[in-house]
């Protein structure tokens, strides 16, 4: 199962809809870091609205992915965590997800744009330098 990576100017959008196997996760992470580097993405939004069970393995995949993207120099926001996922993750003993979160994709995009602007990155404005 390959996860599609959508591009919106210099921001990338990904939506994880099923539990990933080890191989899927590695494929997804390498696709994503490659794409981030290729377009020098300024931000990535990871949507997990469709996941209704997030165990410590999936939480680690999401965490690791967010950290990889940050290392490259892009901002990350995770969005769409289901109420019962939040409840279970905290109950399990950790705020497993280290990245910033938003309710939905449109809020995630707003957060990313604001952060990119705060960083003094004006590159997001249009496509002129691509």
């Amino acid at each position, binding site marked *: 199962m390959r996860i599609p990576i959508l591009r919106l100017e210099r921001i990338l959008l990904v939506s994880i809809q099923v539990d990933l196997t080890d191989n899927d996760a590695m494929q997804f992470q390498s696709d994503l870091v490659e794409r981030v580097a290729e377009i020098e993405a300024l931000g990535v939004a990871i949507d997990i609205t469709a996941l209704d*069970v997030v165990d410590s393995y999936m*939480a680690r995949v999401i965490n690791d992915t967010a950290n990889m993207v940050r290392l490259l120099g892009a901002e990350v926001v995770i969005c769409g965590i289901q109420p019962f996922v939040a409840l*279970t993750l905290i109950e399990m003993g950790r705020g497993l997800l280290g990245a910033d979160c938003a309710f939905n994709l449109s809020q995630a995009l707003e957060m990313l744009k604001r952060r990119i602007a705060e960083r003094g990155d004006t590159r997001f404005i249009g496509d002129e330098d691509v």
Partner: protein
Amino acid sequence: MKPERTPPPSDAALAELAAAGVRVLISSEPDIMAASRQARLLAERLGFSRSAAYHVATATSELANNLLTHAGGGRLSANLLDERFGSGRLGLELLAEDEGPGIADPALALTEGYSTGRGLGCGLPGVKRLMDDFSLEPRPGGGTRVWAVKWR
């Protein structure tokens, strides 16, 4: 407004659930998701609250993941525990059994943040928190047996 507590299933439904149970052989990654989904369905049919059903699903996923990662596979089952004539409770029991190498140091395996696998080091301690009763012991013939119960 408080949501009303779901009434317990009828006697006939309980008899059916007791006979049904969930038994999944874990030998590949998709089996983990199947086990987790089936355990959640069983919890919902037993009338568990939504959050409790998600706790059960997540605990099942952790246990199944452990079976695959540390023992190369094993058996995961979920059963109804009917103690209406004893303690008066209804519960859902999870049992994960493998014939793997066993856990060298059980206390360490239950330590927060300790991991030899691919998780965050909160798998087994996580299961312990998500469920009400928990035990981890070596199986007589070799391997490991993890037992956990969520009471309604």
